[in-house]
């Protein structure tokens, strides 16, 4: 079954993304990893849409792409502001959220 291959690809991408989010220090890399995760979800959505022969999955994937674009826009703006204030975007040096 082809769909299974897509799901496996999606799982791999997702794991890669999760690894990036957890292990990377650079904020931009983390953002990119989040993109990977979102695209893994997209691959899954398309795969399931193919399995069920329905267009809804495609539509939803388009939504995800739009939301991802907005999220990156906000994320990069934040990274820029952080860089401007601290001259660094290393996430492990950022602990202002410490409780």
């Amino acid at each position, binding site marked *: 079954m082809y769909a299974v291959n897509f799901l496996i690809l999606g799982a791999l991408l997702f794991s890669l993304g999760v690894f990036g989010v*957890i292990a990377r*220090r650079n904020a931009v890399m983390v953002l990119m990893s989040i993109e990977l995760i979102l695209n893994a979800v997209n691959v899954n959505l398309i795969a399931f849409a193919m399995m069920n022969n329905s267009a809804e999955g495609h539509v939803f994937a388009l939504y995800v792409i739009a939301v991802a674009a907005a999220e990156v826009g906000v994320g990069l703006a934040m990274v820029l502001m952080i860089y401007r204030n601290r001259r660094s975007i290393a996430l492990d040096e950022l602990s202002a959220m*410490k409780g």
Partner: protein
Amino acid sequence: MLASTLSSGWFLENAWLIPLIPAIGFAFIIFFGKRMPQGGSEFGLLSMAASFAIAVGATVQWIQRVNSASSEGEHALGGFFGFARAVLPMAGEEGGHSAAFVEPVVRTWTWWQSGGLEFGVGQHIDGLSIMLLLLVTFISLLVQIYSTEYVSGDRRYTHFFAALTLFSAGMLVMVLAENMIQLILGWEIMGLCSFMLIGHWWEEAANSRAALKAFFTVRVGDVGLLVGTAVIFFGANDWAVERGSNGFSIRAISAWALSGEASNSVLFWGGVALFIAAIGKSGQFPLHTWLPDAMAGPTPVSSLLHSSTMVVAGVFLVARVYPVFFVGFDILDTAVNLITIIGGITIIAAAALAFVQDDIKKVLAYSTVSQLGYMMLGLGVGAWLPAVFHIFTHAFFKCALFLAAGSVSHSGSHHSFDMKKDMGGLARKMPITATTWMISTAALCGIPFFSGFFSKDEIIDNASHNGYQFFYWVGLIGAAMTAAYMTRATYLTFFGAPRGAAAGEHHDDHSDAHDAHAAHDAHDDHDAHHDDHHGRHAGPHESPWRITAPLVILASLAIFSGYLNAPAVGTHYFTDWVEPAGVAVAADHAATATDGEEHALGFAALAAEEEGGYSEGCGFTTPEDGTVCYAPKLSHAEFAWSKAAPSIVLVAFGILMSAWLSMGVFGDRKHPLKGLTSRSGIARRGHAFLVNKYYLDHLYEGVIVKAVAHPIAKAAYWINQNILDGVVNGVGRSGRATGEWVYRNLDQRVVDGAVNASGLVASETGHALQPIQSGKVNQYGALLFGAATVGAIVLILVNI
């Protein structure tokens, strides 16, 4: 090609393009304006020129339609309009000209649907909307040409043109609105643009304050518009739906109001609410206070919005759904009604205020308010056509006056609008501006053979004709006052000895000159530019052609536009073209009326109507079954020089009196009246009363806002202190006794034990969890995905 397009009715059919083109022009200015060599003004000019061209085409076709309707009676423009049918007139009116019913060109598209209601958007083209379409596009075009010179070099040049173009689009949407919802849409777009343009130089606190004041004052009236539309809708909807229309359609509302089936109280309260909207928008007493402040905007804005077009929106609203007011206020059977009272007060109050203004634009602003009062008065006394005609003529001469004032400040008084400080004796330095100003002043004063005479006198004459004797005198006194304050302004600006900037003096400190223009942003550029100018010309000089050309065009119209409807020379074109005939027509017109099946009905109605006498017809008797009326049948006063004589005499008296006083008070010679206000207590108090604008602003801000806001706050505080606290205290005291017992026995022993224990647990857990809140994003991410993994595993295990 052109001839065939003209005869086919294409322009009338597609009149909806007229507002659409400026709307698109607005989008172009906003998105590409800054990149254009002329800063976007070319889009504005182009779109206005295109709209104007279509409006001219539509006007020509409308006139053809009217002419063929009155000569042939039926199938006015051939088969192209399925519904272009007119019913033959009843025996000619007193004037001897025929009054055939000319079918308006109505087209509707569905805008949106909600709860079974269809909201349409479309066009309703009749004489009134054709007249205003032509007027608005024409004046917008001239003002835009004028603006390219007047605001050149401004920091927000592009935005200025964007707002100006959007304003025109809004006004045009309202003018050809097919239903009340569309009318509200256009109305609100204008309100927004008005706000943007008044506050164009918002860096000056006074300007942004004026913009806010205009916006909020008009909003007060807008509540009336919404309420009125709703009241009329619920009154008319059932009647209209039966006839294939709905309660928002302007045609349906008019027909319903005249059908004799409408409840009078619904019409009355609907009319009152709509009239409140008109009070706000058209600057009628007591909501007129925003209009003079709106002069903080650039002069082209004052000229376009706050004198000739936007402020007539309220008058237009009343004229548009006139049957509602006609029946609701019982206009021909009373000697006084709400519209005439408000109109009458406005005429006199605003004219009196115009006497004490030093700012030339404020004189014109109060003059506008007063003239709008005339239009309202005209509508109130049943002189629909003279009122609409006054909109038409007033637009030309008031626009010319404002542009002339702008020209004076631009090239004559170094951006000052203060007549007493910076003007005087400019007639020799600026001959074109002075001539156009004086022609327009003559038109405004109603001097015979200028346009204002033919419109204003008709209103006054019809007031007495329709039994409003008191308001006839109000109109006459207002005319004399108009003549007097305009003479004063003319003398101060163009005659006498030059003062201040007009004498060539330069202001060193510009914040001193309290006009808006001097304080605006591009001031420095402007100054440099002007200093060059002054270096060469040494003082005041005539303005460049882009300013004088619109002035000359408008001033010649201020003379000639009156002859479209001058009973003194026997012309009545305007009446023929604009006034809807008050005859009953076949009811299928109320619906979309695209089929030609019910011809027979139309002629039956015709037969029934031919017997009607003077006091019968629409608005007086209920229309026959199967027929509807769209306009009340109004009679016009016959013109006679003997009847015009009192106003001519009073106007002449006003001019001479004011000229004598002005020369005395402001001239060099010694005069008994000079310094009267500093010597006589009564005069001083009267002067202060007027200078403070009847203390209306104080009333609104100091009294009403405080009276509404403060007592509510105080009452709330009192209730809080005495009632709520009392209850709370009472409950508290009785509770306390119980509480103490509970405290000793239950609390200390049982509850505290439990609480302490849980607190201890929570605290320990918190300490244990504290390390998790490291503030490190990666750790948070790891926790998140860890939790997700655990959740996923649980999900899988559960489902297996």
